[in-house]
């Protein structure tokens, strides 16, 4: 998009203020800078305006205005995304949904809730918790990320092994299409007739329109939870234990792996009780009925021991369980203890390929003269290699990006994917050909055209394209709340 003239900016601002009120529009460069990045601070792009609608009708009016003027627009939630998906890659309008953050309706009998897109993920579980319910998808940024952002990215989390990802929990969406039309896809009842437009919209990374109301399933809280920590002297043993547990007929709620470098960082930062000299630890959580819970835990313990675990213990109480999870969930902040910056990758592999791929990851990173910490969803085969580096050292960042691409190539080679939960966004658009053919991408593009024929809705994402308008620049630094272990990135 050619830059807007000052006169046009002024008149657009006036028009948007008339829609939203004076406090609803930002256009001062200092204020816009707050919105130039998401959680992947490697990329930055400045919007012309950031706007804060409070209703679906306002979103629709803004989108119509942008369409009329030929200005690109992109929805934004909390900005915790990790692929640059909500960046205004070609300038234009950032539509922040943070003022649309209400729980509109909870129907406990039918186990559904209707929420606005700016609602923080965890706040939904808080809202329904007193009635014994929760919202299952639990991205690790759930204290900050929004349900609308979760829709865009089809977000996962540690407990998706048993409960599935966002798309498995969304029944209906009120959306503003890229031409401004407001309509419902799906609803509270199941099996809407016709194509599964809800399924298609979830995970479309904001390129099909903007969700303004969301109908989600809420689940009954499980009667019992059991969390087990298994400690291994070799990473391969931990990988094998993941498959061994599954082979014993168990589907744990979560199975997370933490490697030695990460354990040391976590112990330095928080002291969560992980043994520092372990090569890897598995955090395994079972949930469900109280009856039979002990018997299932025994199966998990036996599987881990068979694979050579040197220590297996169950959390004795809720405090110990919370501490173990803190070690897992605050690993990202903890990396700040051992490195000035890191880049988080998000590849997926068949879980039986874990030993091979982890070996390759370590070799690739070492060949680039860097270090890597691994903390990831082992049960799903969803890797998160975190490449540690120092952005002040010239050339190191380029080596990180190169190593990251090689890691994703390995994931693709073993039949995996280049993103398990963070999305393609800007970051991985050029890697799409690792796993998709030209025909695959052409088909996706045709579907996109059906929703977004002008391409004004979140341009520059998902499909291989240029990043010309986007600055690449200084590296990630942990947010203070991450450093304190209060939130993390996945």
């Amino acid at each position, binding site marked *: 998009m050619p830059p807007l003239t000052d006169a046009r900016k002024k008149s657009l601002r006036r028009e948007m203020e008339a829609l939203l009120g004076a406090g609803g529009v930002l256009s001062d460069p200092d204020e816009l800078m707050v919105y130039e990045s998401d959680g992947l601070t490697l990329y930055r792009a400045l919007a012309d305006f950031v706007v804060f609608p409070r209703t679906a009708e306002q979103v629709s009016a803004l989108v119509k205005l942008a369409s009329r003027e030929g200005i690109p627009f992109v929805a934004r939630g909390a900005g915790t995304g990790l692929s640059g998906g909500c960046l205004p890659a070609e300038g234009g309008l950032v539509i922040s949904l943070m003022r649309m953050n209400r729980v509109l309706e909870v129907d*406990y009998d039918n186990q559904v809730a209707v929420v606005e897109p700016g609602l923080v993920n965890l706040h939904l579980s808080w809202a329904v918790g007193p009635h014994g319910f929760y919202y299952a998808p639990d991205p690790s940024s759930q204290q900050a990320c929004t349900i609308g952002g979760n829709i865009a990215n089809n977000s996962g989390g540690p407990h998706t092994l048993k409960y599935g990802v966002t798309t498995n929990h969304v029944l209906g969406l009120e959306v503003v299409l890229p031409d401004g039309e407001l309509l419902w896809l799906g609803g509270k009842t199941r099996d809407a007739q016709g194509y599964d437009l809800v399924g298609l919209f979830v995970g479309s990374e904001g390129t099909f329109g903007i969700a303004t109301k969301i109908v989600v399933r809420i689940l009954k809280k499980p009667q019992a939870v059991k969390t087990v920590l298994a400690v291994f002297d070799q990473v391969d043993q931990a990988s094998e234990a993941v498959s061994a547990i599954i082979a014993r007929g168990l*589907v744990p709620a979560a199975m997370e792996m933490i490697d030695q470098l990460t354990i040391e960082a976590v112990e330095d930062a928080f002291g969560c009780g992980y043994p520092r000299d372990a090569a890897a630890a598995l955090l395994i959580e079972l949930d469900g009925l109280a009856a039979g819970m002990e018997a299932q835990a025994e199966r998990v313990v036996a599987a881990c021991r068979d694979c050579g675990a040197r220590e297996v213990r169950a959390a004795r109480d809720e405090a110990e369980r919370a501490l173990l999870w803190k070690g897992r969930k605050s690993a990202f902040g903890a990396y700040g203890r051992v490195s000035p910056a890191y880049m988080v990758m998000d590849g997926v592999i068949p879980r039986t390929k874990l030993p091979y791929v982890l070996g390759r990851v370590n070799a690739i990173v070492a060949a680039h003269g860097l270090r890597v910490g691994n903390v990831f969803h082992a049960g799903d085969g969803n890797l998160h290699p975190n490449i540690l580096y120092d952005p002040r050292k010239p050339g190191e960042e380029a080596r990180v990006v190169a190593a990251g691409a090689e890691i994703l190539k390995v994931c693709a080679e073993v039949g995996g994917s280049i993103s398990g939960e963070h999305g393609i966004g800007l970051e991985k658009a050029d890697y799409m050909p690792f796993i998709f053919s030209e025909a695959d991408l052409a088909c996706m593009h045709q579907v996109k055209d*059906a929703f977004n024929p002008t391409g004004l809705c979140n341009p520059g994402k998902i499909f291989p394209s240029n990043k010309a308008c986007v600055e690449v620049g200084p590296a990630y630094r942990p947010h203070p709340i991450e450093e304190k272990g209060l939130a993390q990135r996945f």
Partner: protein
Amino acid sequence: MPSALPDHLRRIVGAPHVLTGVECSPYVVEGRTPEVVVFPGTREEVAAALAVAVEQRVPVTPWGGGTKMWVGSPPSRVGVVLALKRLDRILEHEPGDLTVTVEAGVPFDRLQAELGKKGQWLSLDPAASDRATVGGILASDASGPRRHLYGTARDLVIGLTVVGADGRLVRGGGKVVKNVAGYDLPKLYVGSFGTLGILVEATFKLRPRADVDQLVIARFDRLKDAGQGARAVLGSDLIPSALELVDGETLRRLGHGGGGALLVGLDGIAPQVEWEVAEIERLLGPLGLGGTRVLDGPERDETWRALGGLGRPGHDGVAAVMKWAVLPTQLAELMDAGAAAAQRNGLSAAMAAHAGIGLVTAILSGGADPGAVVATLVEWRGLANGVGGHAMVEWAPLAVKERVAVWDAPGPTLRLMKGIKERLDPGGLLNPGRFVGGI
């Protein structure tokens, strides 16, 4: 049709794999006989056959096990039936990954038996699973009672390969259980009834088989009480794999007495299931529970199979079958109202619902008078639409379908659906006219 088409197809797949003339009669779709039936042996042959048909502008109807060919509006013309039964290989089953990749023509029961050898299963339980193929189940989004806990095909497919109308192979998703790279194309194709492409290959995520799998039949004198029972189960700590609310007529057809019942699937390890059976009796006792029976083994399987089979045409004078999607709390009342409507029209109804999901299969029988059938279906649709739900005619004779729309009137989303259809099948040749809004 240009007479050259069968010859073209014979050159692609070999003469023994092309049927013409009277040989096509087993492949009649809604009273219309196809001009040619072709049986490709590979996905490349599927692509080549489809390309030839599209080039000659002949409509193509994909055919799996043929168990749901009567779903949808009647087609205006049936040109080529493209049958997938020769694509019947299980390509890759890696038990450690809990995934399987299969060709579209694999019969469902055969797949399940193979997975069972490794202690795993694909957690779907569609009707007619002995003949239904994986591709057909996906295209029609078929499911069964266990969707209560395990979801439907959309939740279980992690990758699909499709031959598009342009004859190109398109893959969506992948082979790993978690994947957000690109648009979720598998969701688009599941339930699209062959209108966007021909499914040739699918990858699923699997589950380990449970140690114990039981079916509890909890009988009540009144459907209304069974409905209260369903709500009690849903609000409890129980984690049933299936929760079916059935009326007295359905119960009778399954060989049991009573005015209504809950059929509760329970699976897991022995102590879990034992606790759950006891908990059901404890919960439902005060709500008018007449008695329970716990089924296991072949008896359990036979009951589930019989329940799925009730709504299939040809069964005991079935006159029409409708599906309603409503809220779970609306079920019992709506089922009672639906039965009354049937009675007023001189017909009888048998109804079964996925109680936690809000889906009713309403089976109409007892008369062949199309007028009474039409009147009842129209009333039924009114009931479902009236509470904000939707209704579709799952099966009805052609004479009825001419007077009652199969699908609800499409809303504003039709524009999007047509936009997708026009882009992926610009010639409008993939199973045309059968789907929502005339797609």
